[in-house]
């Protein structure tokens, strides 16, 4: 046997899918993937959703999520083929030789158990040390991962700790039994950029200090470049390219890798503000249930045919601003002037025309559509409601809209379940355009999408803006998106507007501390970026 810790040979993984109205089908998720990992090495698995990266990661623990089954190949851990060992042997492997850190630590902790009991559970189960020793080790790990109050944080329950901290506790949980290999499955994807950087640094330090090997799964090439030694690029369950980090990001060979490396390549010429903004938000203060103010004295303008990007981390109040403008949450102070006249604060009192001119697109396209309606019905509904269109006239307009979103007539009778994530979001865009609005609020519309698909959506939105002269209020936590599409930018922090102006103003120094933190936290695709940023930080994220 070689000195490989993990050796995957010709792995094939399949599953059974149940497409609506058809017979169950067996599909292959992973075709013939092989990889080797030496002790103490970190391999990044990168690809879009459906690339099979999590499935491959979990195969190193001989685990298939849902109905997933390993149908062929061999997986060696420490020299033995783990696909051939029985349930009892697998329990010896899991949690002892290989451990797992999931994407959502918040969902991955048992809500009814104290963190410490969960962190040391594996160590005690496998009889690796006494309870006191295990707890001492856990506290040591909490400290080295930069968790606040390491002595006592273990006594807390999962809901008492923030998402970024939980992600670090989960890393401690994976490290505690001193495994040989850790599978990190998108450990920072659900976090704000400003929190992501801390967790990323903690993970990197832990890997270096303990010398554990790792499979690092993510869709974000810039992130994986910071922690890995090697990168394996996957697409549709096939290996695309394998190389060192440096080779992949500096000289990618395959066309698909090149696309991944240069994602976010959209550019957009900034437009000058006009004299008459289409929407003027004046001194808005708002709160939920009347107690805590989530928006404090916020004023912004949006100009016809332009894009205002609102950025901030979770809890900054950016989605609340959208709720106030749409009338879902009447503000306690301030007013909203739309197209020259003041809007009624509460939604039920607004006129049909006001409703028509202000449309919204949501983050989760699949829950924003009725799964029992066809694409034609979904797009046709606003045409009926606002313009009274029927029959052939309506159908003609639906087809026009489908052409505008680059999908075409053949989709008119499809159901949402038959569409990909990007196509669903396109249908939502068509539905809002059908109302011929003056302003569309886009709430994190690309956050749930893979980078290349997201780029396509942004390109489409910009093209449509040119044709329809529609304004966008673009809510996002992703600064790269902001840079590519906005005309003006509002930076929000804990309910307050900390920086506001045209794109060039906001993105030019001198920066206030928060904008600086936000801008510097966006992962950059170069080696050593993480260390550079951490050396220059002035303040902590609100998520800590």
């Amino acid at each position: 046997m070689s000195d490989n810790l993990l050796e995957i040979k010709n792995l094939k993984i399949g599953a059974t899918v149940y497409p609506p109205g058809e017979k169950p089908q067996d599909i292959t998720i992973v075709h013939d993937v092989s990889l080797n990992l030496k002790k103490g090495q970190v391999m990044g698995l990168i690809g879009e959703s459906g690339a099979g990266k999590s499935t491959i990661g979990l195969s190193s623990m001989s685990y298939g999520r849902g109905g997933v089954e390993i149908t062929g190949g061999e997986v060696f851990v420490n020299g033995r083929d783990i696909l051939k060992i029985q349930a009892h042997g697998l329990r010896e492997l899991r949690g002892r030789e290989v451990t797992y850190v999931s994407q959502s630590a918040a969902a991955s902790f048992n809500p009814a158990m104290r963190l410490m009991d969960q962190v040391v559970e594996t160590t005690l189960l496998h009889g690796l040390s006494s309870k006191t020793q295990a707890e001492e080790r856990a506290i040591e790990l909490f400290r080295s991962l930069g968790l606040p109050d390491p002595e006592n944080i273990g006594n807390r329950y999962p809901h008492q700790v923030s998402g970024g901290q939980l992600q670090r506790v989960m890393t401690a949980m994976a490290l505690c039994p001193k495994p040989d290999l850790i599978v990190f499955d998108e450990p920072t994807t659900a976090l704000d950029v400003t929190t992501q950087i801390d967790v990323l640094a903690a993970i990197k330090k832990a890997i270096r200090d303990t010398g554990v090997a790792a499979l690092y799964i993510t869709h974000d090439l810039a992130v994986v470049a910071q922690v890995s030694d090697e990168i394996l690029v996957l697409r549709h369950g096939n290996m695309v390219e394998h190389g060192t980090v440096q080779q992949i990001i500096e000289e990618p060979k395959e066309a698909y890798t090149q696309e991944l490396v240069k994602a976010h390549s959209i550019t957009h010429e900034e437009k000058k503000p006009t004299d008459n903004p289409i929407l003027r938000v004046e001194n808005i203060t708002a709160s939920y249930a009347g107690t805590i103010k989530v928006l404090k004295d916020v004023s912004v303008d949006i100009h016809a045919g332009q894009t205002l990007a609102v950025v901030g981390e979770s809890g900054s109040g950016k989605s609340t601003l959208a709720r106030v403008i749409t009338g879902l949450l009447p503000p306690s102070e301030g007013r909203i002037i739309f197209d020259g006249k003041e809007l009624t604060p509460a939604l039920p009192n607004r006129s049909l025309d006001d409703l028509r001119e202000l449309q919204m697109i949501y983050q989760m396209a699949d829950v924003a559509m009725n799964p029992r309606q066809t694409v034609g019905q979904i797009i046709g509904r606003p045409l009926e409601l606002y313009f009274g269109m029927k029959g052939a006239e309506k159908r003609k307009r639906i087809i026009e809209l489908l052409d505008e979103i680059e999908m075409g007539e053949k989709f008119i009778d499809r159901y949402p379940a038959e569409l990909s994530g990007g196509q669903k979001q396109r249908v939502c865009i068509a539905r809002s355009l059908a109302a011929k609005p003056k302003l569309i609020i886009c709430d994190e519309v690309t956050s749930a999408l893979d980078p290349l698909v997201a780029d396509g959506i942004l390109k489409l939105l910009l093209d449509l803006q040119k044709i329809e002269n529609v304004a966008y209020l673009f809510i996002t936590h992703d600064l790269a998106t902001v840079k590519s599409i906005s005309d003006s930018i509002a930076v929000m922090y804990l309910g307050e507007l900390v920086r506001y102006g045209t794109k060039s103003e906001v993105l030019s120094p001198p920066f206030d501390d928060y904008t600086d933190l936000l801008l510097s936290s966006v992962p950059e695709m170069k080696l050593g970026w993480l260390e550079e940023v951490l050396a220059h930080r002035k303040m902590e994220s609100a998520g800590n």
Partner: protein
Amino acid sequence: MGHPILNLVAQRIALGLLLLFLASGLIFIGTQILPGDVAQSILGQSATPEAVANLRKELGLNDPAYVRYFKWLSGVLQGDLGTALSNGKSIAEGISTRLKNTLFLASWAAALSVPLAVVLGLLAVQYRNRWPDKLISGISLASISLPEFFIGYLLIYFVSVQLGWFPSVAILNETMSLGEKLNAITLPVVVLTMVVLAHMMRMTRAAILNVMQSAYIETAELKGLNPFTVIRKHAFPNAIAPIVNVVMINLAYLVVGVVIVEVIFVYPGMGQYLVDHVSKRDVPVVQACALIFASVYISLNIIADIVSIVANPRLRHPK
């Protein structure tokens, strides 16, 4: 202010008391709109109109309904349930031995059925969709589908008449030892257990299977825990609330719904007592029994609520 849990618990208890008060009103109204006249039914068809009028006066039946309601209610609050019309004895005395018997039967049925239901539910989860699960589900469904009087008579015929293991009539008296009493109530306990078991077992199974979909169960599996530890340590504690709820509803049924079983086995409990007095048109006794049933129902549900509140770590350990 105290711990938020104390507030929530106090709120539930206050709501329970309010509910009990409303229930007492409904019970009173219900017995009032029943057809027939109490005085008439006590004296019989041949009574003279004068005698009926006198008795009405004596019983206070000429007062307006709300006066009688508050009189009754204030009596109840002082522990006086009134006197039975049929025999002129204090209802409180008559009920207390009956209630004791009913609780005796119900608590042994609960002691048998609750642990059995939970254990069977856990086993069904552990072997889900395999033969042990199907067997448990099948048997418990069959037992819930058969009417309880049918099960009761089947048991009497086979176990009592044919095999002679247990008596077919469950009569208790003060001189019996605990062993003799248990021997006497074995068959009714078995019937009650079979009736409530399926519901609790299936709810336990469903609640735990629901939790088994959670990401933290996957975490536990990837820690290398054996399947039973995963269920016991990670799934069960998060499924307590729904399980306790269904357990409490079934416990309430054991107290309130035993009428048929008591009649079949001639058991001297509340159910029999109620049935006897309904047929005698003894309204005060019916009211008293109904009120006791209502309070049992409401208090068991309050307990279920409180257990769900206390079992929730978010409420027990606020941020």
